[in-house]
């Protein structure tokens, strides 16, 4: 992408984004409730033979209409359906990413009035999973890969998309699957199911294409009061993430994960996410050029080239811990004395830090995540939760500075009393949820550079606003002291 293209994309993103996260509704029926009643303005339609009349009908109801197409269809779709469209959403699989990098600038140049967004279609239905998997007329299977409640979350996917698509807010969708609590397959998606999906995308600052059940679409179009009661709850969640005053926040992270292949199915990152270890995804090129000062631990899954090896050595020299996974080469730090930790792991002390070489791929992602938390050390953990096995917390900060916001999502979908510890000294803790608007003041307890507080009730979503006083110490920055 040229510099001009990059600037144009960023200008477009900044101009068109007024919220942390946006919910696009995927609609499949021919009748639409008015946009102002639905409360959401961005409608996504599939490209098919009846597409054009649908666009007109949807626009008449006040929607900004997008068409969802495969990368393969994108040029043809943009040519034929441009009239009246707000934009084109490109469904791009992992294998098509290289092709995307070539075609996207061309599409944007050819259709400057159309918005082109890239969609990752491989999201998961967010949920706290049980071990039972029931298949129609088949088998019931139980498996529990970790000691913790198994949470299906899209946080790792969002982190990867953030690196993969610089210049666009990550956008994903997923298909509803499995059993509802009533035992009916896809028959009873509830307000809670939709709300959790919206909350997750909102908390992760990602855009979501929400697939609405056809029965709900029909019921909403037919003014069914029960359907509108359900939808109003979902809408309150969407509104919760669009009514935000603090726009200039970035996800806080002190663990970097360096990847060759941006594969969203990587379990090691999913487990880091589920253990509430804030991480940022980097490409090998970032090792050479990026600012890595804020990271305490750097996990390198990529094969490092000569320059990257030198950077790893430099990082370790300056006190970082670098974990090199599947390390089989000769590296500059190996001049030092090796300490064998176990059959597969060797440590090298380098300057003020260390490099750990793991000779194998990560065989136990659960244990690996726990290892990374241990390597961070108690003093460098940005967020800790108690009674939070079903909760994911994402901390945000102003650029390079103070932690400002903590977004919380509870996948158990039932009220939970949660104890939280964040790095930094904060004098004011305010809590809001979609159900109870801003803000309830919580009592901060300051302890050794950390602040602890209790969230009295987290049902699905909650947001904590953290405020340090003017004399805040370095710890409030969310960057660990040296």
């Amino acid at each position: 992408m040229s510099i001009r293209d990059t600037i144009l994309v960023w200008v477009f993103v900044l101009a068109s984004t007024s919220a942390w996260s946006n919910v696009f509704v995927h609609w499949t029926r021919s009748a639409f409730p008015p946009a102002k009643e639905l409360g959401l303005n961005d409608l996504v339609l599939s490209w098919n033979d009846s597409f054009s009349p649908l666009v007109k009908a949807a626009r008449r109801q006040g929607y900004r209409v997008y068409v969802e197409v495969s990368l393969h269809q994108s040029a043809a779709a943009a040519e034929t359906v441009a009239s009246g469209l707000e934009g084109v959403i490109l469904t791009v699989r992992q294998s098509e990413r290289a092709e995307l990098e070539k075609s996207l600038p061309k599409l944007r140049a050819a259709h400057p009035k159309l918005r082109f967004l890239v969609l990752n279609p491989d999201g998961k239905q967010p949920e706290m999973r049980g071990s039972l998997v029931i298949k129609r007329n088949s088998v019931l299977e139980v498996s529990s890969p970790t000691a913790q409640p198994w949470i299906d979350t899209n946080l790792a996917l969002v982190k990867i998309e953030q690196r993969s698509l610089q210049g666009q807010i990550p956008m994903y969708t997923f298909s509803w699957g499995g059993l509802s609590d009533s035992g009916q397959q896809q028959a009873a998606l509830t307000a809670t199911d939709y709300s959790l999906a919206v909350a997750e995308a909102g908390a992760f600052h990602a855009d979501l294409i929400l697939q609405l059940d056809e029965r709900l679409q029909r019921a909403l179009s037919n003014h069914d009061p029960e359907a509108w009661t359900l939808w109003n709850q979902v809408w309150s969640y969407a509104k919760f993430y669009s009514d935000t005053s603090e726009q200039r926040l970035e996800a806080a992270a002190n663990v970097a994960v360096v990847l060759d292949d941006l594969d969203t199915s990587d379990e090691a990152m999913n487990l880091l996410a589920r253990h509430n270890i804030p991480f940022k995804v980097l490409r090998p090129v970032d090792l050479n050029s990026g600012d890595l000062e804020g990271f305490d631990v750097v996990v390198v899954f990529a094969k490092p080239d000569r320059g990257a090896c030198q950077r790893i050595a430099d990082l370790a020299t300056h006190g970082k811990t670098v974990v090199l996974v599947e390390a089989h080469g000769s590296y500059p730090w190996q001049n030092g004395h090796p300490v064998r930790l176990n059959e597969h792991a060797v440590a090298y002390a380098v300057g003020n830090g260390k490099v750990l070489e793991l000779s194998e791929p990560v065989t136990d992602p659960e244990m690996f995540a726990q290892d990374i938390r241990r390597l961070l050390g108690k003093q460098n953990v940005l967020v800790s939760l108690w009674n939070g096995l079903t909760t994911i917390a994402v901390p945000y900060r102003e650029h390079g500075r103070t932690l400002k916001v903590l977004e919380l999502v509870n996948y158990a979908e039932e009220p939970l009393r949660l104890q939280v510890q964040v790095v930094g000294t904060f004098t004011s803790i305010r809590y809001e949820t979609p159900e109870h608007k801003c803000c309830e003041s919580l009592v901060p307890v300051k302890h050794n550079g950390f602040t602890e507080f209790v969230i009295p009730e987290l049902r699905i979503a909650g947001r904590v606003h953290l405020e340090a006083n003017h004399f805040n110490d370095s710890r409030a920055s969310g960057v660990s002291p040296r």
Partner: protein
Amino acid sequence: MRCDNRRAAALISFFLIASFVQSSENQILVYKKKYIMGTVFEIAAYDQSSEHASNAIERAFQEIVRLDDLMSDYKADSALSNLNRSAHFHAEKVPSDLYRVIDQAVQFSRLSDGKFDISIAPLVNLWKAALRGEGTPSRAQQEDVRGCVGYEKIELSPPDRISFRSSCLQLDLGAIGKGYAVDRAAEVLHSLGIRDALINAGGSTIFAMGAPPDQTAWLVHLRDPSNKIDPQVMLKDGSVSTSEQTAPSLLGNDAAGHIIDPDTGMPLKTVFTVSAVSRTATVSDALSTTLLLLGPTKGKELIKSMADVSAIWISHEAQVETVTGGPQILFGRGL
């Protein structure tokens, strides 16, 4: 983060030949899950009325929540927390469920000659800190804490009073509480007319009531760390529980783990995963931890002294030891 005292058995798997929507007998399968006791409880129940089954499952969940409110060591206002605060000073009157589960736990301690011990909590907490990377406890710390451990210091006075003969004794029901809760949930389902159901407590304890329609039992696939054997058991009105030690660190050399051997005061070192099958979930739950601690040789002796109990030990290298006094443990492959 809060951790379970015993790790849920990873990778237990079941298969049941089940007609999902309706069976030939018009039995409808209803499934629900709920987060309780730090894990996901799941109940799948057959009934002719989905509404009735659904209500029954909700009542069973309510029972588990009630028991969690009694037995939790995390909740400051639970009956167990109150007991842990007061029983050093006087014989504390406790709810009947709490008395029953502690009574059964002490019986298991006697049966296992102290390998199973609900007073192990102070040592577990000491080593939990090591698991969090806070350093291995010193020998002196270990010795200090070991003085606080010992089931013999629990004094039960029927029908409902308990006192501690130690000023630092603390009870933790993590190795038996979920099993007890599963049994009570099964009683609730039974009292409401549900005959065929499966209750799964986070994968570590599973109780089967009756059987799926047109089947003689529920076929449950057990945890197999070797992935070579596929052990299975046909469960009908019975329970299976699985225990294993925390997996070793990939990037360290610590020997921490969540199952502590009361004899050494240190994390258990074992190559095995154990599944224990019995008539009740309380017994299978307590037994799986006990058998892990005892190992196959002593464990088999214990099993032979009990009725209707079977067990299997499996290592990552597919070393298998079994003992059968109850339901037969089958092998899907390998042996």
